[in-house]
């Protein structure tokens, strides 16, 4: 029987959250979501491009068995993010919100002060907040104390595909915050990055650009899905400790020609 886990009041089988931006077509996006076996997808609210485009995307969403995690991407202040979250709740009829308050336009690093302010207000307002955050322990602790039961630290800046650049810092977060759901969000580039996050004990990963920008996004969605399952299985199996010195794997007893 497949393992299930709980996040934000829901029970899931997949630990793969998939972003929906940057895909070459709506059909490719739809196929990628299916192959990913993701049960959570992220999306945004924007001024309508054309009524037809918005309607097509909305119609496609209705055909897929996924939970929607709307984001506040592009918000540069707590005020903007809070308003966007409330609009998202109204439109999507969900209390889930991926909270982004961006502090720098070039590297899209979260603004920790705006993020904490918005998270505090939104938790108070009954939202289930999924804050996109850095790997800073103190910021994450403050978000927890503000009411966040889920944290989404980055591996590296959004869209860079650089993977986990500060492994020990992420490991420290996992060790120090055992009671919250931790989802690594942003910067993953290859399936092995996702496998590593699951091996380290993180509850899941959120991936967008690594899939959408792949030469074959549908195949890449499948690759990530497989890697995430492998990483989780490896974590549950108990990974050996690495050693400073070699230890032979073949028994030494009975080695021929011992005394030559």
């Amino acid at each position, binding site marked *: 029987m497949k393992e299930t886990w709980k996040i934000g009041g829901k029970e899931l089988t997949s630990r793969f959250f998939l972003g929906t931006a940057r895909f070459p077509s709506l059909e490719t996006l739809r196929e990628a979501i299916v192959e990913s076996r993701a049960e959570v997808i992220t999306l945004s*609210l924007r001024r*309508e491009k054309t009524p037809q485009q*918005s309607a097509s995307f909305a119609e496609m969403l209705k055909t897929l068995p996924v939970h929607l995690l709307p*984001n506040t991407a592009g918000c540069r202040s707590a005020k903007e993010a809070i308003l966007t979250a*409330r609009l998202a709740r109204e439109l999507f009829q969900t209390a889930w919100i991926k909270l982004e308050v961006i502090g720098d336009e070039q590297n899209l690093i979260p603004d920790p002060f705006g993020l904490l302010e918005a998270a505090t207000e939104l938790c108070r307002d009954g939202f289930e907040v999924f804050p996109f955050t850095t790997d800073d322990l103190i910021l994450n602790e403050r978000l927890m104390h503000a009411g966040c039961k889920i944290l989404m630290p980055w591996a590296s800046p959004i869209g860079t595909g650089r993977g986990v650049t500060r492994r020990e810092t992420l490991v420290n977060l996992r060790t120090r915050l055992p009671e919250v759901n931790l989802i690594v969000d942003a910067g993953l580039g290859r399936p092995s990055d996702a496998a590593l996050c699951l091996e380290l004990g993180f509850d899941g990963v959120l991936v967008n650009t690594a899939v959408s920008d792949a030469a074959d996004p549908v195949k890449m969605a499948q690759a990530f899905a497989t890697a995430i399952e492998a990483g989780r299985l490896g974590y549950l199996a108990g990974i050996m400790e690495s050693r400073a010195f070699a230890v032979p794997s073949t028994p030494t007893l009975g080695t021929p020609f011992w005394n030559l």
Partner: protein
Amino acid sequence: MEVRINGNSQTLNGPRPLGQLLNELKIDAKGVAVAVNLEVVVRSKFDSHEIKDGDEIEILSPQVGG
């Protein structure tokens, strides 16, 4: 009267309910979220919330996002 809709100025010939404005713009009210002057207008109030001179209206719909 002048209002701004999604950042664009528009001239209307008088106040009207938000629901009526959406209708005139051929926008399906069920598929959008609306803020007027930075305040969310819940869907149940679309037909009672009056759009007035100088209102800033944001009409947002679902789009892709990471």
